[in-house]
């Protein structure tokens, strides 16, 4: 029997898009604040819970996703205002901020656990009607995909527009480059940081909401996804959105198609799925810490075609 890759391919793209959406916020917050935000996963979980709870109350999906956006944005801003900002003002080392983000993540995650346990919603999924629209091979294109793909594409496009063609976006890039220089140039650093956390947290919340439609959500969801989200950002070099997309899709492909091929030909158990992305990260970190950022594909092609300088 030949290996049918249509189902893994579909899963790769879906998961890849969702990891990308989750990782965009992480890339943004890392590049601007230089915090390795381990509380990022909790934004995903909160978005997922808000969406699932409100959809199951009968509110339609777009409004639920907006609610998820708002909730996660508020959480992100709250964590920044209560934890990161005071620490940065005290001049803490980046490592302390990382530890603080682990602490903040623990607090939020286990508060959600307590809430979920009290309400009896330790596992929850948004009850939406999933219809099959088209079939590609054995894989089915469902309504879930009609949400996931456009939202990812639109978010990336909007972020690109924002960061390259608006004033706050350009200021944020300046901050990412050199915060002190940005500050003396008259950029209001803390106002912009808040804006960044709203956008980063919100997008992550929407990603969590889509996850709730696609699969089940538990208070642990964000933490479990976090390592893959880090992987996506790291492959993208932690700086560029396009790199993050490449990273997210790469992780999606590696975890689905990669494991299918290895399962078929090398008899590797599919339980090793997460291993691929973790190994990828360790290797990227050790041998190319800048990720795919800085790889000049067009220049390389030109050189090969003999049209280079």
């Amino acid at each position: 029997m030949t290996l049918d890759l249509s189902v893994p391919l579909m899963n790769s793209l879906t998961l890849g898009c969702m990891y990308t959406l989750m990782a965009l916020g992480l890339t943004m917050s890392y590049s601007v604040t230089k915090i390795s935000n381990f509380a990022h996963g909790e934004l995903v979980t909160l978005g997922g819970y808000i969406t699932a709870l409100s959809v199951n109350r009968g509110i339609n999906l777009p409004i639920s996703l907006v609610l998820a956006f708002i909730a996660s944005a508020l959480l992100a801003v709250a964590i920044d205002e209560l934890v990161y900002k005071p620490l940065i003002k005290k001049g803490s080392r980046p490592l302390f901020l990382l530890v603080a983000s682990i602490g903040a993540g623990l607090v939020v995650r286990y508060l959600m656990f307590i809430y979920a346990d009290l309400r009896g919603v330790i596992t929850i999924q948004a009850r939406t009607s999933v219809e099959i629209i088209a079939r590609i091979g054995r894989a089915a294109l469902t309504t879930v995909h009609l949400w996931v793909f456009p939202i990812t594409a639109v978010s990336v496009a909007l972020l690109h527009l924002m960061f390259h063609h608006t004033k706050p976006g350009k200021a944020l890039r300046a901050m990412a480059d050199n915060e002190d220089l940005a500050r003396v140039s008259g950029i209001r650093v803390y106002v912009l940081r808040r804006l960044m956390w709203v956008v980063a947290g919100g997008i992550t919340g929407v990603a969590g909401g889509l996850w709730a439609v696609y699969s089940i959500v538990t208070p642990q969801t964000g933490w479990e996804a976090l390592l893959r989200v880090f992987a996506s950002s790291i492959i993208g070099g932690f700086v560029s959105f396009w790199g993050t997309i490449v990273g997210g899709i790469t992780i999606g492909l590696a975890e689905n198609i990669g494991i299918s091929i290895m399962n078929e030909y090398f008899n590797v158990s599919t339980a090793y799925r997460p291993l691929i992305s973790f190994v990828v990260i360790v290797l990227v970190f050790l041998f190319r810490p800048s990720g795919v950022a800085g790889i000049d594909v067009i220049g390389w092609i030109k050189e090969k075609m003999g049209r280079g300088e």
Partner: protein
Amino acid sequence: MFEAIGGYTPLITSFLVLFAIYLIMALSLNLEYGYSGIPNFGHVFFMSVGAYVSGNLTARILYKLSGSTVDFCSGQAASVRTAYASQHPGLSIALFILSLVIGAIVGGAFGYIGSYPGLRLKESFLAITLIFIGEIGRIIARNEKGLACGLTGLTGIANPFCWIDNVNLRSILYTIVVLSMAAATFIYVQKLSQSPFGRLLKAMGDDDLAAKVLGKRIPRAREAVMVIGSALAAIAGVLRTFYIQGVVADDFIPLITFTVLSMVILGGVANNLGVLLGTLVMTMIDHFLSPSFLSTIGFRVEFDITYVKYVITGLIMIFMLMVRPEGIIPEKPVKTPLLDISSSEEWEVEEELKL
């Protein structure tokens, strides 16, 4: 004598064993994170190495010797192993000591491997990488049947004192062993941190470039501290394995590292006495907020009480970093016995210069 406090013995011994194991973990993490500035957040992985080594060593030798033919991972084989060990006191103690030695060696070897990224990455990235390495280890262990019997875990690892009939006496003896191991670790780490090597670690943690400029071999020191810290963590893993008499891959989650980290941060970074205090406080929270303890005093809540423990852990980490990053007991100047700086003249000159 044992009958008099018999009812409370399990409560006290389980607390003390937990405390001692956490103390070894916290002291070794303090050596890496507190003194040397290496954020080894994959610390639990090195603990798990010790657990797998000791579990496999003991269980496989007992399995061979008892000559049982049933499946190695089955519960029946486990009870055969325990029964065999309880008839051979010398063997069970020998296996325990052998496990400690080999566990520490293998843990140190893994620490050496772990120092490869440790030499090449800056702190946040190193922390992430080490967390990932720990998770890779856990995923492999839960899927590889040969390592710890997969998801079910490896059981039937006989306690070194399983040949004693009196359960209380048995646990008291094991508690004494574990506590003395913890005390030995404390003395060792304390001596180490006050030695020239300890001062080198401290210099490295404060500013490794400056230490390098002064001609110190920073890569060697980083390797050494990772090896020592990981070997100690592996010993903690061995002690834990023999205490719960089993190894389950899913016990070694990053959350344990974070709990240990909160002990270091709470008590005092780069202060072993502080770490002792932090460990005591956190172990008390850990122990007295467990469902099994609360049910004995008749306290019940609607949700799983362990969640509260982690919320408190997180809050403590944030609170300490904000209010008192140096911990409850701050770091003290290292006392060097041979040279008393305070009486020398140079010191006074320096003081005057400050004014």
